[in-house]
């Protein structure tokens, strides 16, 4: 839930223009993976601000805890061990959570009006009071983010602290990060900052370092700096994009085709009746009697 109501860019399952009298600057969260120490302060801050408590689980032999995103864990430090050719073992820690796509697959897939809302600042927010629990947002998401509550059957994910942004505060995870791995601000500023970090990393021998702002979803409002470059090392898709199956399924073309199909059946029936009329052997005057 968010406090913004006049600067909506898009609502799910809504074909008319959303209220957009106001507009605000596009924001972004920058996650510089090279600076993350895996302290999970952001995870704790997310729980604290959003008042969420995940189930106490059991250890699985890694620092990753809880094991996965859930309706109670909207951000998660994922701990990965990877072999880098020629460089040996790398311990990669990635803060996982919603990337707030500029072209959000969840919003396109959602059949419930206003359950997914995109604000002009780029935040993609779920409004759970409109959620019907169908799971289409999961099919739409290229990053496997939305999770459902076991009790309420509603979809949850990172809100980018839309409630804090609305009153001029930064997201809770940003406020708590001790290493400046996380930064927040106008997207243009964050991209400039990211470019600087990449140059710095390249100077330190991370030749492959790059910014992750996938164009397949028209860019995201959570941007990563990946020191080793290849997104797959970080559990991120190399070519992020909404599945063409979902794009087709939820497209205006498909919706129109469905309606045209329905209307054609009605029109064909109506005009066939008007042309030929019914078959009714019982009322034929010339029929032979037994």
């Amino acid at each position, binding site marked *: 839930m968010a406090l913004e109501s006049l600067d909506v860019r898009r609502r799910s399952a809504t074909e008319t223009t959303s209220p957009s009298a106001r507009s605000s600057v596009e924001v972004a969260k920058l996650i510089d993976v090279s600076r993350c120490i895996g302290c999970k302060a952001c995870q704790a801050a997310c729980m604290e601000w959003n008042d969420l408590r995940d189930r106490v689980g059991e250890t699985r032999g890694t620092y990753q805890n809880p094991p996965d995103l859930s309706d109670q864990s909207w951000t998660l430090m994922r701990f990965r061990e990877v072999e880098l050719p020629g460089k040996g073992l790398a311990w990669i820690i990635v803060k996982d959570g919603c990337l707030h796509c500029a072209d959000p697959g969840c919003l396109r897939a959602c059949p419930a009006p206003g359950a997914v809302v995109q604000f002009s600042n780029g935040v993609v927010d779920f409004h759970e009071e409109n959620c019907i629990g169908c799971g289409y947002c999961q099919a739409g998401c290229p990053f496997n983010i939305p999770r459902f509550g076991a009790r309420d059957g509603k979809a949850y994910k990172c809100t980018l602290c839309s409630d804090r942004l609305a009153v001029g505060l930064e997201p809770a995870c940003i406020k708590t990060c001790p290493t400046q791995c996380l930064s927040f601000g106008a997207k243009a500023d964050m991209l400039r900052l990211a470019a600087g970090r990449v140059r710095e990393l390249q100077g330190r021998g991370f030749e492959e370092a790059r910014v992750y702002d996938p164009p397949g979803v028209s860019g995201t409002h959570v941007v990563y700096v990946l020191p080793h470059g290849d997104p797959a090392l970080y559990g991120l898709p190399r070519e992020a994009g909404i599945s063409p199956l*979902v794009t087709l399924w939820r497209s205006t073309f*498909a919706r129109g085709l469905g*309606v045209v199909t329905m209307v054609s059946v009605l029109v064909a029936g109506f005009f066939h009746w008007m042309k030929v009329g019914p078959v009714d052997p019982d009322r034929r005057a010339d029929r032979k009697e037994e």
Partner: protein
Amino acid sequence: MEGTLPPERRGFATDRPPDAIRRYSEAERLTHWAVALLYVALFASGLALFHPFFFWISALFGSPTTMRILHPFLGVSLAVLFFAYASRLWRDNLLLPSDRIWLRRMPGYMNGKDETPVEGKYNAGQKLMYWSMIAFVAGLLLTGLVIWRPYLAPSFGMTARRTAGLLHAVFGFVMFVGIGVHFYAAVWTRGSMRAMTRGWVTRTWARYHHPGWYRRMTGKVAE
């Protein structure tokens, strides 16, 4: 024709002629209409989830969430009833060589020429409808199971769920065409609707539409 009814049923109105032929049993009729009602509820709720313009239909189910929860249960009920019914009809729906001729002359029939004599209980159009409905109900059931939250969807991969979602919608609309043709044909050939609501057809109806079946039912040759 009150004479055809036992005295204790004299209050039940009927225009059934004494020599009418039974076409659909009580069990067949009740199953058919249960499937039909479920189909209407399923298509309406499916349409509400497919196209935002029709989302208001969800209010008829109480709330959008209630509709989303109900839809798959209604779907499984339809499939169970449909296949229970259809499993008794397959023999009458096997395609015969004579069905080719009927199909070839179907456009003529639809444009006012007399119907080609039919060998069995069902004509070639009805048979094709039967087999296509089996395919579409099976297709909708299988794809529907794959996207059934919260019970089954989580155990399928995302590609399977995306494919199933798309196919479910495609099958839904193609089935609508089939049901549209089925419904229109029942209205168009007068007496067919009564066969499914009351169970009987007139001898003239049987002789005209299904002469082979008429012969088997009465031992008489249709002219």
